[in-house]
């Protein structure tokens, strides 16, 4: 007898998200006429709607009502994560444990930040498609929250695609964007971003699936835990390499990272602020689940390759970020380097298991990375939205003299930059320190030294951005105008970065509990 109610409760957050998504889609269908702001020329006909979708008519804007609905829905889901019981789904394919709960909260916060950051952009560029926008974002979140608790290869693959496919669409969402001169380059870039994302993603999904099917063939079960029973064989070697490579693409590990700068540059910035963090950490956690939960016994098969990838990723990411003048490309490459650093936590967890602190360090890193990286992308979005220097949109030069224009915004950006660079008393410092300490304990001293060495490069390019903000001459002297929701999101990110840096033990306990749920 299956306890249906219990199962539903265990799956509360992903289910609620699914319902939210459907509600949003229907609300989008039903609301358009009602959602007209006052002062417009009456209800639009269906034909007008289609025309407006093709090219946004200035002045004709739909209210942000769908965005607010999506926001409230995510807040409700976040509340649900506090009441949803922990437990195992019958059959054991999904486990709602402390880890899943923590990840649900982190991912939902990422979603909330993205929506808060997206309001202005949505209204400006694709007000007609906002229902789809928020629904796709929630759809992706469904996949992510499922990933955090999955113990089954099949569910893992499905959740992964559920997370990934909406993101391809979201990346192309600015396809009708034009710059101030009426040039359609931004729109073309957005389409290009989505296309590249999709093509490389499709190939790597195929690779992952092939690897997973081999694993299934070898173990005869889709349970991740059953993978431990497979005897070592060359075929297992090939299968694990395929899986690692497939994930490597999603996570942007070198040499699978080339799509990242192109995609980040073209995709709408609020979307980038979301998919530069949330799918990355959900994906890394899923990979960790396969490696630690299933293939831990075959450490020697995958560890050397992954360690090599980590070194190459950190080095390539930092080196590629160095010459960038485009902020989003710079952050894209620096994010690649950050992923390489996070991998170190996986090695430590794999080597020491419950004795070490690799996994909790990794979770801490997720949160630190979420706060700082999202914050910075939203600062870029703020400047782009202000649009006072259209020719320099998204370039480092657009930040020049920001401190004199908007000191608060500059300070928020500085805090996030310092955190990403790992300067003490920003949360990023503790994140790096914890990961490095865990790796050192696990005997990866040389890897730590390499990581510290290449992160010096990071210091250089992060601080170059800071220098531009504080020492550069402002081209425009007016303060940056920013929608309230965007300011709230940026402030929240900066406060979290600074606050957790001063008092990190607030989340240390939570990450340790979550890690303990996996490692016993």
């Amino acid at each position, binding site marked *: 007898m299956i306890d249906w109610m219990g199962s539903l409760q265990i799956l509360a957050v992903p289910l609620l998200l699914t319902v939210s998504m459907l509600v949003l889609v229907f609300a989008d269908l039903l609301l358009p006429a009602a959602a007209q702001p006052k002062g417009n020329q009456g209800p639009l006909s269906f034909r007008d709607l289609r025309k407006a979708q093709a090219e946004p008519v200035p002045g004709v804007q739909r209210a942000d009502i769908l965005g607010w609905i999506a926001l409230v829905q995510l807040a409700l889901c976040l509340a649900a994560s506090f009441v949803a019981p922990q437990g195992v789904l019958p059959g054991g394919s999904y486990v709602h444990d402390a880890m899943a709960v923590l990840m649900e909260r982190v991912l939902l916060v990422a979603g909330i930040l993205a929506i808060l950051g997206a309001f202005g952009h949505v209204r400006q560029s694709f007000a007609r498609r906002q229902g789809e926008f928020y629904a796709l974002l929630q759809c992706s979140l469904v996949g992510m929250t499922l990933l955090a608790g999955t113990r089954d290869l099949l569910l893992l693959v499905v959740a992964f695609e559920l997370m990934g496919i909406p993101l391809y669409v979201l990346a192309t969402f600015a396809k009708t964007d034009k710059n101030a001169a009426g040039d359609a380059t931004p729109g073309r870039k957005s389409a290009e971003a989505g*296309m*590249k994302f999709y*093509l*490389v993603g499709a*190939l*790597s999904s195929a*690779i992952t699936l092939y690897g997973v099917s081999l694993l299934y063939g070898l173990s005869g079960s889709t349970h991740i835990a059953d993978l431990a029973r497979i005897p070592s064989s*060359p075929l297992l*070697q*090939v299968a*694990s*390499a*395929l899986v*690692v*490579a497939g994930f*490597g*693409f999603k996570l942007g590990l*070198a*040499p*699978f990272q*080339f*799509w990242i*700068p*192109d995609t980040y540059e073209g995709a709408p910035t609020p979307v980038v602020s979301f998919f530069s963090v949330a799918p990355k950490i959900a994906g890394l956690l899923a990979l960790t689940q396969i490696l630690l939960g299933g293939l831990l016994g075959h450490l*020697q*098969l*995958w560890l*050397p*390759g992954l360690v*090599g*990838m980590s070194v190459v990723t950190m080095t*390539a990411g930092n*080196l*590629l*970020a*160095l*010459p960038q003048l485009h902020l989003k490309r710079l952050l894209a490459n620096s994010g690649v380097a950050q992923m390489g650093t996070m991998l170190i936590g996986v090695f430590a967890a794999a080597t020491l298991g419950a004795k070490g*602190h690799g996994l*909790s360090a990794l979770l801490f890193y997720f949160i630190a990375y979420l706060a700082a990286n999202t914050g910075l992308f939203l600062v870029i979005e703020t400047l782009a939205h202000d649009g006072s220097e259209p020719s320099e949109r998204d370039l480092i030069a657009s930040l020049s003299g920001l401190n004199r224009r908007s000191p608060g915004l500059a300070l928020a950006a500085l805090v996030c930059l310092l955190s990403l660079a790992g300067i003490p008393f920003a949360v990023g410092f*503790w994140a790096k*320190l*914890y990961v490095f*300490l*865990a790796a050192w*304990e696990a005997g990866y001293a040389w890897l730590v030294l390499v990581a510290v060495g290449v992160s010096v*490069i990071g210091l*250089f390019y992060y601080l170059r951005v800071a220098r531009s903000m504080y020492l550069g001459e402002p081209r425009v002297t007016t303060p940056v105008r920013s929608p309230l929701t965007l300011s709230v999101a940026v402030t929240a990110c900066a406060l979290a970065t600074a606050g957790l840096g001063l*008092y*990190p*033990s607030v989340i*240390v306990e939570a990450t*340790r509990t979550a890690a303990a749920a996996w490692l016993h």
Partner: protein
Amino acid sequence: MSAFTLTRVDAALLCCAAPLLSFLILGLTPALRRTGRIAGYVSIAFAGLSTLYAASLLQGRMFAAASPPDIGQVGWLYAGGKLVASMGVQVDGISASMLVVVTVVALCVQVFSLGYLHDEPPAALGRYYTWHSLFLFSMLGLVVAPNALQLFLCWELVGLASYLLIGFYFKKPSAGQAAVKAFWVTKFADIGLGAGLLVLYVFTGTFDWSPQAVQLLGATGAAWTAGLFFLAVMGKSAQFPLHIWLPDAMEGPTPVSALLHAATMVAAGVYLIVRTYPIFQAAPGVLVFMTFLGAWTALFASIIACSQNDIKKVLAYSTAAQLGYMVSALGAGELWPGYFHLVTHAAFKALLFLGAGALIHAVHSNNLQDMGGLWPKLKISGTAFIIGAMALAGVPGFAGFFSKDAILDVLLERHLFAPWIALLAAAGLTAFYMTRVVMLALFGKPGHHTEHAHESPPSMLAPLVLLAIAALTLGFAGTSLATAAGHEYAFHLSTSGLIASSLALLGIGVGWLAYGKNAFVPGKIPAFAFVQGIVESSAVDRSFAWSYRVVFQGVSGGVAWFDRYIIDGFMNFSAWLTQMAGERLRAAQTGRVVDYLYAVVAGLLLLAAAGFWR
């Protein structure tokens, strides 16, 4: 009985939180800050609240002397899965009495400043009180720190507040330079504290100064920790040769000098020794060094103080000298006399500085030559200043007499004759130079500005009276204070006490003859003339300047060369290499999807190969 009772830990937290709140309020509301006086009232109100909490804590401690310290801590930093550092409060007899000292002096100084700085523009006054609140919070955090890391952080914060307050008149170039000098000299010394913390952590795995930690340190660890800590003490508490920043720091407003550079912040160094005393006790070599260095500083600074014409500089050198007494006494191996002197010194030196502030306020000059004959016009401030001078000189019955006597007694008991003699000589000199200041400023022929001098407003007189009472009575409170701190102390007239007070009276007599009666001109006496000649030719300063030039420029020149050509060369080369690598690697980012797909396949093959190759 109300349901809401305040534990000692809560009271200590509130005591620290009040000035923090004031700092945040003033710091975050520019409108309020720029009102000046109202900002001052806010700051004073919170300082008063803090004082009440501190007083209640001390009172509680007086009746619970034997109970263990009240410690409240929360975990702050974790690393590698274990707790590395905590934050919190530790309330025992020492920290409770120190809290009272700090809050009372701070309150007096903040009230005094209302009158002293009444001509300042409101915005500047608001800024002044904002920094004062920051200082008070940091200093209280330092005092209650339950571990060395929190102490270190607050130590740096008071250093920052000191820098900001010395540079209060930042439009004056000399004030800016003095602020920077104070900052760098103390920062240089703070390397010792940072490094000492590292040693402590490496040996014990904590930042605690508990007996277990001292045991884990062992002789070597204790020697390193104490030695490195003492470097920081030399900077903060102005011990030779790192005292050089203190006279320059007198560029700050006089009330600031009273609070930071006489009563509390400079005493933080001595307080650090008191707090980590178990570690120091395990390092006998460091203790011996402290005794001699403290005594030398006391003697040396007292000599210089005899020849200064700036009233604040006299007091500054005298502060360095009195801190030397404390350090020397702590080096002798007993905690109480040094700490007792810290407490009494805080009272009478704050009194002296505020009194000097009243004199300066009256004549608008720091120079003793501009004062003269002020007594008839400034009866109350003058009396307060004289009481402070007598307490500093060690006239029997005044606060300084008791604590100085206790220090000398300990040195003699431990057969530390050389420091003992040096400190006795310094005691005589102290009496002499204070008599000189009193005679030149308050009596004698009127100076240029005496005519227009007038008594200070009540906001300045009230703190003077309060502190004067403390300077008169604090000596008699020694026994109960010691009991509260868990120490034994009872006054008894000792040999060294007798000699010291005779010397003090002798110094006063000589000073009176020289500057009061003009019976002789000190400059005509060969020995005196020699010393004064040296001082007046600023040979000391010049020899300092010379040695700094030679030592610092020599060393720093070499370091600079090494840095510029070897380190920078290497750095530039690696930077160039990195840039090149970045540019080259960029070529791989073609923008063509097909190339990316090739990269995916190539990476996959490499991954598979990595496993087989192993």
